[in-house]
């Protein structure tokens, strides 16, 4: 039925494998669990999954619009809505879209949790990361990054209590780790094939290190820095938080996702340039709204310039993903 992206075909294939044989020996194919479960339940094959991906994208967009409010500040969403690579992501990369949607929710909760001590934010962050994990295992890396960021952005709040950082980390990481442990146990119990399950994402090769351990580091760093060159809004937002909002610790914490991305790539998680672009833009929008950067006249102009630059670069950019090339060719000729 029409054009089906490799990711959606892959998820659909997984679902068909599960039902192909009786018993639970094929349970290890249920990975990532949430998209495969959706494929099992929904009719329509890859088309149905594409609809679901669009729905999740719409939910994320609605979530961001609600945070920003209906104003000219919605300009910051242009790098998400005006770029073909994002159109492709939104409709075809279901696991990434689901994972990043919940990562956006987790980020908001995390900031409230770490800076304001609002435990409800912690609940939301932890649970959203767990759901994110069920679509993409690299959520584990982001849970770790959030823990690493706590001393930077929540130092004042938890200062003096040596137990606090452990408590904070436990609250953030537990749902994600519990989801991973429970699911892995069930996979192992019923299929005897746990170690392979993490690597079952389309392009993942977790702990594979095809370029060697050290060579992998160089490749991951280069790829991440390249991704940053298409994320002007993110870079500018990080600098503005430090300079205009006088929150250098927060700025430093915002660098951690870059490290996390490099780490995820090095470890072999499935991360494409498109998802990296999505992630950095999402982070930028979250930070801009959290610090009300658009209310600062100088910052507003700088951000608008960054938005324009990023949109132009992103439109000109042709991701090397084969799926995107085919999709782009069909759509634009």
């Amino acid at each position, binding site marked *: 039925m029409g054009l089906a992206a490799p990711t959606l075909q892959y998820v659909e294939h997984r679902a068909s494998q599960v039902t192909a044989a009786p*018993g*639970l020996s094929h*349970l290890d194919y249920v990975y990532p669990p949430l998209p495969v479960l959706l494929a099992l339940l929904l009719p329509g094959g890859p088309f149905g999954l594409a609809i679901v991906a669009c729905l999740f994208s719409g939910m994320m967009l609605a979530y961001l619009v609600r945070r920003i409010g209906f104003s000219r500040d919605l300009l910051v969403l242009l790098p998400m809505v005006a770029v073909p690579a994002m159109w492709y992501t939104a409709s075809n990369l279901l696991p990434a879209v689901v994972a990043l949607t919940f990562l956006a929710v987790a980020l908001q909760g995390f900031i409230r949790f770490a800076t304001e001590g*609002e*435990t*409800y934010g*912690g*609940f939301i962050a*932890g*649970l959203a990361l767990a759901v994110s994990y069920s679509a993409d295992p690299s959520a584990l890396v982001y849970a770790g990054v959030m823990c690493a960021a706590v001393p930077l952005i929540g130092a004042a709040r*938890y200062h003096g*209590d040596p*137990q*606090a950082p*452990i*408590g*904070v980390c*436990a*609250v953030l990481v*537990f*749902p994600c780790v*519990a*989801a991973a442990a*429970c699911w892995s*146990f*069930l996979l192992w*119990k*019923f299929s005897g094939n746990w170690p392979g399950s993490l690597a079952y994402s389309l392009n993942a090769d977790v702990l594979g290190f095809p370029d060697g351990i050290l060579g992998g580091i160089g490749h991951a760093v280069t790829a991440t820095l390249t991704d940053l060159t298409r994320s002007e809004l993110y870079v500018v937002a990080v600098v503005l938080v430090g300079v205009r909002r006088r929150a250098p610790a927060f700025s430093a914490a915002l660098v951690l996702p870059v490290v996390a991305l490099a780490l995820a790539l090095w470890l072999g998680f499935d991360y494409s340039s498109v998802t990296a672009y999505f992630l950095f833009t999402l982070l930028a929008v979250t930070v801009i709204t959290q610090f009300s950067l658009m209310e600062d006249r100088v910052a507003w102009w700088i951000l608008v310039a960054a938005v324009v630059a990023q949109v132009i670069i992103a439109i000109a950019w042709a991701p090397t993903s084969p799926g995107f090339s085919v999709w782009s060719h069909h759509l634009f000729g």
Partner: protein
Amino acid sequence: MEPATRTVDAATLGTVLVDKGMITPEQRDWALARHGTTGATLTTIVISTGMVPRRDLYQVLAEMTGVPFSDLTAEQADQRLMARLDPEQLIRDGWVPVRSLPDGSTLVAGAHIPRDALLTSIERTLGAPVTYHITTDWDIRYALQHGLRDIIADQAALGLWRRSATQSARKALYPRQLAGLAVALAVVVACFVLWPIGSLQTLSIAVSVLFLLFVSFKFVVCMAGARRERYQAVTPEDAAALNDEDLPVYTVLAPMFREAAVVGQLVTNLAKLDYPVSKLDVLLLLEEDDKETIDAAKAASLPAWMTVILVPRGQPQTKPKACNVGLFLARGDYLVIFDAEDKPDPDQLKKAVVAFDRGGERMVCVQAALNYWNVYENFLTRMFTAEYSFWFDYMLPGLDALRLPIPLGGTSNHFRTSVLRQLGGWDPFNVTEDADLGIRASALGYTVGVINSTTFEEANRKFGNWIRQRSRWIKGYMQTTLVHARSPVSLLKVCGVRQTLGFLLLVAGTPLSFLFVLPLWILFVASLLIPAPIFAELYPGWWLWLGLFNLLVGNSLMIYVSMMGAFLRQRYGLVVWSLLNPVYWLLHSIASYKALWQLITRPHYWEKTTHGISALAAQPSPAAVTGGDVPRPRAGG
């Protein structure tokens, strides 16, 4: 009627007390100022602050008014006369009939200056002329307690059962409930005989699905509670803005049984309450045969604002029965229960007053949060604290937010006294009388709220003691389920689907989920130990998968809410300990089987929890360090 009506104004009384050398002029001025600001009588103020002994003061009043003084400890009031009257009216109006006099009048002793209106009211009530004597308010309670001993004992034990037997746990199972259970059991046994494997599989699936359902319900409610964590039903400013003059009389019930060691602690803790002592009516409820605690109370030289009430001997010998005795004799517009070792936040009573004002007439009760001061003593105290943090800080506010029935906690529940009496007080046959009362109030259309105030208690640190306490609580939830499920249709009609479901998922679901834990863990361990091909014959793949999935997810959810509760209380050290919640739930499971056994064999038996066993000294509660404003004028006179 005696013709003369006397008046004694506060200033004159103060001057007389100074002239008699009973108080200093400074104390008089202070007491008069308090009289002006609180609206309490000068009599109450000087007695409650310990300036003048109660009996001496009333004798002075008698002298000033020329009315004779009666000592009701020396002369027993006539029980037959009292029995004809409404005891609530006697307590409220502050008088008792003592005896019939030869001239046809009735000798009445009262704690008020005799005025025309009062005397007319008494004569109308008695239907006879009155000869009035003055006595102390303590004597009146004493006379009532002794004169109406049998009535009070009977009312406390059987009052609720008499007015509505279906609301009482005196009979655990009604015949139709028994028949229903017997039929269900017979069906299960028959199924197991005819289709052993299929029945085992079906039962285990039902158990695992219900387990996840009950746990998920708690999780959802906790999330609703967490959303309101910044919401303060009553702020400290709201409480501070109250005028002492406008504050109502507040009865504090402190039931104690074999707790001689903590009498002094109770006095210290209650003295920190930020509430005018002249408006406090603290009743220390001691069992008649608990000589040890009675002696300790006598030795403790209790303050004048605290009254010892002896609970008549008799079955059932339970805390709710003692509380019913206290309710019978309570003078306050509002009433709260504190356990002996409780350390309430100082402004808790004021917050409750504000909450009642805002909650409207249908609000019968507000529950304060409970937490512990001996957190880090051992595994049990840590887990208990984490559990209470999630229960009182998330679960109850969540139930409140979702407008679901709230099972009250053991102490620190504040009531409108009049409505509590209408509800029939506590069920002395229910071993979690508090939870039952919360559900009963909801079932009758009353509302129960929560306030953002905490009472700090001592966490149970000994395994045996913990099992005893927990098995009682779980048995009480089972009793409450059986009581309120007697007429499911009428429950549905009165409460509606939402509240009924909430009740079932919480009150019935809690003991059931504990009962389910043990078999689910056995299934888990068996699945690991028994070779897969053999196990697969008993449990086909998906059945086992579902069972294990529910167990793992359910336990993860409970670990997480436990973590969050500890985090909210800023007890970060407990967060990681919450990972041991499954072990803690296994202990619950053991307690739940004990509870089930006791429900069958000794349904009304009250497993006594021993308090005062902490190896740590009681720490001041974080909010209690500022202390209360109990007036402490220098002694003199």
